[in-house]
């Protein structure tokens, strides 16, 4: 990698990361469902300052989404039950993908579906209309908010493996499987993705959560339960990334409550190669760019030349490791 100097003559840290054969300008992506299809946030965020954009989930047909109420704020987080509202793959390839193609950053198309065939058909439709900066696909098998939204894949190791194998045959681009924390252990899922030829796994999606109005005795969300996100879930996400890191050798994209560069760095240390910034975009639409800038500053301060040097550097005492921690 090239070494460049900044204006003070200091070595400018290298933020580039490679996933498969794709090089990203930095390891910070924006998470699916927290950045629309780019156009919505453009006024508030320098999209080209991001490593990439993971799009709002796209399904074969447009989805209207769930009835209100769809969001509830909770302690250091929020519950959502959006219900995969999206424009459908036709509009996605006609309008959304060409729009994002104008930016000097990578695109990862997130796909949600309710059957093996739908996942494959959506992927192949996008593949047939690919733009040069389309880096690959993130497969959402972990949405907890719709009854037909793929969680039946994400909570079943065999189906995860079968789906990954099927989709692997349809693309040479990056194939990333987005895993759910709503399982007993993430390890067998990470291993299933590796066996089936995925390029990476991303985790975690939201945790199933609930909030109740004590005066009406009704759930606050229309769908009773929803997906918990935000800083509240970061410790859980870190632990899951660490467990996945120990379970497989696939690159990991860490997601869950990342607001600052410090948060992101914890994920790199736990074993993530890249991160996604999600709910923070709802507060600061340029949160991803802020994280990338903070990351560069940290590397400079710590005199670390490459961000990749941080990855999987957790120090756990040998006797603890031996005991399975």
């Amino acid at each position, binding site marked *: 990698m090239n070494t460049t100097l900044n204006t003070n003559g200091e070595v400018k840290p290298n933020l580039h990361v490679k996933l498969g054969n794709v090089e990203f300008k930095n390891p910070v992506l924006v998470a699916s469902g927290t950045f629309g299809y780019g156009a*919505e946030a453009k006024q508030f965020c320098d999209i080209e300052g991001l490593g990439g954009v993971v799009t709002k989930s796209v399904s074969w047909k447009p989805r209207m989404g769930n009835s*209100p109420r769809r969001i509830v704020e909770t302690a250091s*987080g*929020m519950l959502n039950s959006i219900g995969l509202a999206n424009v459908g793959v036709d509009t996605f390839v006609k309008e959304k993908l060409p729009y994002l193609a104008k930016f000097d950053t990578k695109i990862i198309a997130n796909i949600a579906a309710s059957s093996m065939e739908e996942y494959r058909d959506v992927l192949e439709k996008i593949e047939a209309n690919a733009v040069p900066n389309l880096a690959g696909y993130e497969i959402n098998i972990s949405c907890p908010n719709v009854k037909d939204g793929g969680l039946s894949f994400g909570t079943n190791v065999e189906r995860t493996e079968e789906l990954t194998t099927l989709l692997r045959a349809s693309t040479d681009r990056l194939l990333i499987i987005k895993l759910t924390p709503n399982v007993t252990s993430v390890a067998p899922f990470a291993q299933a993705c590796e066996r089936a030829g995925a390029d990476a796994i991303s985790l975690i999606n939201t945790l199933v959560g609930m909030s109740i109005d004590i005066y009406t005795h009704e759930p606050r969300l229309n769908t009773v339960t929803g997906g918990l996100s935000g800083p509240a879930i970061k410790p859980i996400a870190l632990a899951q990334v660490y467990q996945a890191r120990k379970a497989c050798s696939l690159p990991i994209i860490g997601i869950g409550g990342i607001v600052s560069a410090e948060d992101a760095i914890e994920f790199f240390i736990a074993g993530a190669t890249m991160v996604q910034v999600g709910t923070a975009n709802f507060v600061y639409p340029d949160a991803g760019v802020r994280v990338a800038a903070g990351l560069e500053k940290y590397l400079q301060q710590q005199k670390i030349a490459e961000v990749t040097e941080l990855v999987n550097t957790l120090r756990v005492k040998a006797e603890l490791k031996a005991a399975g921690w």
Partner: protein
Amino acid sequence: MTSSSVPSVVTQRRILAPGLVTLRFRNPNVAHNTIAGQFVNILPKAGFSDPMLRRPFSVYWTQGDEAEIIIQEHGRGTGILANTREGEILDVLGPLGRPWMFDSADYMTAVLLIGGVGVASMPLLTRKFELDEVPLHTFYGARTSSLIARDHLANVHIATDDGSEGFHGSNVMLLRSYLESGKLESPKIFACGPTGMMRAAQSLAAEFSIPCEVSLETEMACGIGICQGCPVRTEESVFAVTGRRYRLACTDGPSFKAEEIVL
């Protein structure tokens, strides 16, 4: 060029009534670019994760480089904001959303229908109508006289639930009497208030076949159309034409043609 949130110094805090406060803050972008009906999304406490989300507020007034919001305390976030002191910094994103549709050519008299803290989006609208010399009537309903924010309004007809001032009853009933008497020439209703009042405005407008716009206050997270958290259900006729079951209060609104949405 992107415009992210801007630190804005609070220059004035006024208590209008118990639990009702105005905050004036310095933010040239909001002050100069807000059009009546738009809102700002403000963090209760920058740098803290609890509460985490911004709170949306109509821009109540603008003058010079300063803008003002009106806050009704109804939870932790609004409680923190209402207690912001002069000299403290607010983290303000905006202006956001679409303005009131005052340019529609379907009316001669503007009727502002205000319920409670729904007053927040009306002063800038009033200023616009006064500038354009549009005849204007304001029907302001409140629980009681002390909760009325009187600034920057014009030709105000007050209705209070407890009869402490003006008409004893609802502002919609008061407006109905004006409509029945034919005192308002070719009116259009601009309504902002509790859902019940807006539903009543919807049916009143339908009954008298007059245009009506309602400005909604819903839960919001981002305020810029990315979270999809503030859906507004569309009427069947709109759904049939557009295929859209929901619109978003933040970017498609906050004001909507009354006949196009389900309240």
